[in-house]
């Protein structure tokens, strides 16, 4: 880093305090609607950060515009509430300039996939070490209830009074297709699961993309209840766990096996199949990740939740630092006088 940054951010002076979740609460009142799923995400992040043992002053939360994008104001870390869709681009610049920071992005289905869709796919392919939390409520909340790029086809909203004719994105597939190295999904109403996923995302080196199903109780109440509520959850969700067979259903009575490239649901109760027949999840297998992510809008299949993919690939900012180091070792540290006197010069006497 530059001389001036080094002086300000003296490496020997990082704080070594043991944090509690309270240390990450800012003095600002949280202004989300009562009952909003965002509260859960905030609580889980504040719960996990102390476990990471990362100096608080080196943590930055960056957001765009939308309900979820108020997130940085509630964190007692460095924060930047940007403009609509650009959180990932602001975060990219910050992380490239300052690889020593832990940079988080709080975004939503509108901010991250609609107006900011372009930046999202490019940050994923570059694999910049950011932790992206995409709050997916399948609706535009802050603008009071228009359909979003993840709203289901036929969705009736203020801007689609007879039903939306848009096909929704499947965020996990989009992230995988963009070359994401860590792609996961979690649920606002499953705090334990979300904590596990957030921790894994923070620990992943490279872009972590975490889609969180988040209930908007004002404009899209119950959008995910099938996947989050006790009565339906176990039959509707399959949790992906590395190295384990895909089992779901009440009492684990169902499983998923591969039929060619197509996943199918089989019964573990009727004697036709055992867990040995089932697909074993491997979060290092990118082909499998696509197959699992594509179960998302398949009505025959349970909704996959968990880590689709977690693989290692060089990070953009590291590669850039390497080029800089190599240039310095080959050409020496840049000297301004030498630079200004470079090129084809001549002397007038």
């Amino acid at each position, binding site marked *: *880093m*530059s001389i*001036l*940054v080094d002086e*300000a*951010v003296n490496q020997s002076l*990082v*704080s070594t305090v043991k944090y509690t979740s309270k240390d990450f609460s*800012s003095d*600002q009142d949280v202004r989300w609607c009562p009952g909003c799923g965002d509260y859960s995400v905030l609580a889980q992040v504040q719960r996990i950060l102390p476990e990471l043992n990362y100096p*608080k*002053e*080196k*943590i930055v939360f*960056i957001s765009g515009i939308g309900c979820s994008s108020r997130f*940085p*104001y509630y*964190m*007692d870390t*460095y*924060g*930047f*509430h*940007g*403009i609509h869709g*650009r959180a990932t*681009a*602001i975060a*990219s*610049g*910050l*992380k*490239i*300039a*300052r690889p*020593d*920071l832990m940079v988080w992005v709080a975004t939503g289905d509108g901010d991250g996939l609609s107006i900011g869709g*372009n*930046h999202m*796919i*490019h940050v994923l392919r570059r694999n910049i070490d950011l932790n992206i939390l995409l709050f997916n409520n399948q609706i535009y909340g802050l603008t009071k209830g228009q359909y979003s790029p993840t709203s289901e086809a036929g969705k009736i909203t203020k801007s689609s009074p007879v039903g939306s004719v848009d096909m929704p994105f499947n965020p996990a597939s989009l992230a995988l297709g963009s070359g994401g190295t860590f792609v996961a999904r979690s649920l606002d109403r499953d705090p334990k699961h979300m904590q596990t996923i957030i921790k894994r995302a923070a620990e992943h080196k490279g872009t972590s993309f975490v889609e969180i199903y988040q209930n908007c109780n004002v404009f899209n109440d119950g959008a995910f209840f099938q996947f989050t509520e006790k009565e339906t959850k176990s039959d509707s969700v399959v949790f992906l766990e590395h190295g384990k067979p895909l089992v779901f259903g009440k009492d684990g009575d169902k499983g998923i096996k591969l039929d060619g490239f197509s996943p199918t649901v089989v019964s573990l109760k009727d004697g036709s199949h055992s867990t040995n027949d089932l697909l074993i999840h491997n979060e290092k297998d990118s082909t499998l990740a696509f197959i699992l992510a594509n179960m998302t809008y398949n009505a025959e299949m349970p909704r996959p939740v968990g880590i689709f993919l977690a693989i290692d690939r060089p990070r953009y900012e590291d590669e*850039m630092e390497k080029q*800089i180091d*190599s240039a*310095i070792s080959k*050409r*020496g*540290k*840049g000297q*301004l*006088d030498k*630079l*200004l*006197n470079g*090129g*084809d*010069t*001549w*002397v*007038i006497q």
Partner: protein
Amino acid sequence: MEKETRVLDEVTIRFAGDSGDGMQLTGGQFTNTSAAMGNDLSTLPDYPAEIRAPIGTTYGVSGFQIHFGATEINTPGDHCDILVAMNAASLKVNLRSLQENGIIIVNTDGFGDKNLKLAGYSQSPLADGSLSKYQLFQVDITKLTNLALADLNLPQKTIDKTKNFFALGMMYWMFNRTLDNTNQWIIEKFGKKPELVEANSRVMKAGWNYAETTDVFAVKYEVKPAPLTPGKYRNINGNQAAALGLVAAAHQANLDLFLGTYPITPASDILHELATFKNFRVKTFQCEDEIAGITSAIGASFGGALAATTTSGPGLALKTEAMGLAVMVELPLVIINVQRGGPSTGLPTKTEQADLLQAIYGRNGESPIPVIAASTPSDCFTMAFEASRIALKYMTPVILLTDGYLGNGSEPWLLPQEKDLPSIAPKFRTDPENYMPYQRDDITLSREWAIPGTIGLEHRIGGLEKQDKTGNINYEPENHDLMVKLRAAKVERIANDIPLAKVDGPESGDILVVGWGGTYGTIKTAVERKLKEGKSVAHLHLKYINPMPKNVGEILSKYKYVLVPEINLGQLIKILREKFLVPAIGLNKVQGLPFRSVEIEEKIDSVLGGKL
């Protein structure tokens, strides 16, 4: 036979050919040799927008103009005295820039039936008398090049690529230039391929010999060295100069330079240049779009880098919202707009000055941004440095306007020394005691720069309105009013920190010509000629447009007329009229081309003659 030598004060040559003919290289070599021989000069390349347009067509013509002299040279020349045309299309496109009685040197091989047809000639201009008012020299450059290389067994393609050196050799003969510089360059460039060193060098010598020994050319010319300030020079174009200015500023400020950008003509060369400075820890981030270019730079600035973004008109439009964000979060940021012809995609490779109002006013809300402009190619260095200085000191985005003419045009640059550069001393806040993100400095009104990683300064910023001092979100009417006024006052105070404006010419008189940006050299030339005629005329060139130097109003009041030439429909003039209530007169031309000095001279005459 000893040939006659005539001494000239200044000459303008235009090299023109197909975009694959190497005209930029030829012009560049002639430039470097002339510079090394002590001439003052100014050059301008003229590229087609198409990369490899079909061979022989008019839209594939590439040109390079050099104006050099034994006196001070301020422009690439209104008209050329000599046109070197490698084919029919290049003659067709460039003839209009040639002086009456000027010299045309053509490669006759480029005037076959096919070439004539592609250029849209029904009959050969070489034979139909249409060029009778010029001095026409016909040389079969292609054939002579082939003959010169006959014994080397080179592929025809390679031979064809050397013919520009034949033309260069002839011009070196005509202007008494040494071949040494270019021979040296050929060795450096093609050192690993001895056959190419031999071929290029031999063809250039063949061109020189041809001119020397045949009777085709009876006269050669001499242009003596110009009385330049002693010192070390290099030839530099505006884009290179801007890049160096940013590196120099980051170096002086002890910061790393971060460039977030998206390629766009004619600004991309700043990115190309900066991408080579990795050993200065320069980080260039080629983004997915213009918006990511500026927003990534804002992110880097938040992290404590000297951050910049570079673009041209349409790209500046895309960055608009993010510029407003930079105004709101009050972080330093340098935005360089290398203006081109607009609106929309417009004329990507042509020059224009029509983004001034966009730069000053083109954002939602009250969104003040300092705007400065470079006036010559080498001035892009000074002004990129200055933009950085202002941005860092006042914690603000700064827009630097250059244009395609400055960006691509080049001139000799008296090299600055590191010790002569102004100091830039940004400071990061490190003391957590009583820290408030929007507490301001009493003099500059700038807030403090507190970067992530500093213990105890954790804070949040963003695009929502801030409460005075604390920086918390605040929607109260009085607070908004106060913050809008504080942001405006901060930019206004920069006027205390910039040099007063100075006129060239008498301090009062009949007419003041006020310009900004790339028209500097042209206006200067025009005003100097009128002064020599005894006219009462002066030149004021504004480098600081928002805010303006404090004495501009006073200067304007000292002349009977104020004339404002601009390559737009009248943008600076609107501001001058609004700010100073002067009945300024505009001279406006929007052809994608620089003014010619004579156009400004004519307007001066007509204003003085009472025709407004």
